[in-house]
């Protein structure tokens, strides 16, 4: 089966600009996650969707970050305006295939550099 797809793979922007990331989960997976992984640290959950509803966004900086999952499939994560400390790898994961497995499958990530 195809894995989790993310694009772009790399993005370089200047501070105060905006940027958007896209994620396509594994077909049939109801749950989708966005993580932020700062260099040298483990991933940190930003937001979790169940179908097209938000389950947890307690660690999402809502003044600048937003995410949506229209139609319960693809998702986009946006940052506006970006700050230097947003430089990180943004990972998308999905879970919840046949049998309700909780195992999360990760995409390759988008590496964001803010200058």
């Amino acid at each position: 089966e195809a894995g989790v797809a993310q694009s772009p793979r790399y993005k370089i922007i200047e501070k105060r600009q905006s940027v958007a990331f896209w994620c396509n989960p594994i077909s049939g997976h109801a749950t989708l996650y966005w993580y932020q992984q700062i260099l040298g640290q483990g991933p940190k959950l930003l937001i979790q969707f169940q179908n097209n509803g938000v389950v947890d966004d307690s660690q999402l900086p809502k003044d600048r970050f937003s995410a949506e999952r229209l139609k319960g499939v693809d998702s986009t994560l946006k940052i506006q305006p970006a700050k230097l400390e947003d430089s990180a790898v943004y990972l998308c994961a999905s879970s919840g295939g046949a049998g309700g497995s909780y195992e999360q499958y990760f995409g390759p990530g988008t590496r964001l550099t803010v200058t």
Partner: protein
Amino acid sequence: AQSVTQLDSHVSVSEGTPVLLRCNYSSSYSPSLFWYVQHPNKGLQLLLKYTSAATLVKGINGFEAEFKKSETSFHLTKPSAHMSDAAEYFCVVARRNAGNMLTFGGGTRLMVKP
């Protein structure tokens, strides 16, 4: 609340020697525990998982981990390291039956010398 501590940020071994990556966890609930591996410029891959069945869990590529509740540990081991094992390893805790929200440790970078 739950948290994970990976006791070593870097581990270096010679090819063919045993690997030990240490992990301690804290959880107010019966946890699920995982080890993920991340190769450079690749996505995270699940190595193995503990979800309350056998305490000794076998994973892919010859890795295994033992859940020790009394020590709140979930150390990852492999009898013989291979050059391809060089990567970043993450110990992860999840609260079972609670949305599967993962809490990652800080990671251990494994280096394998020829």
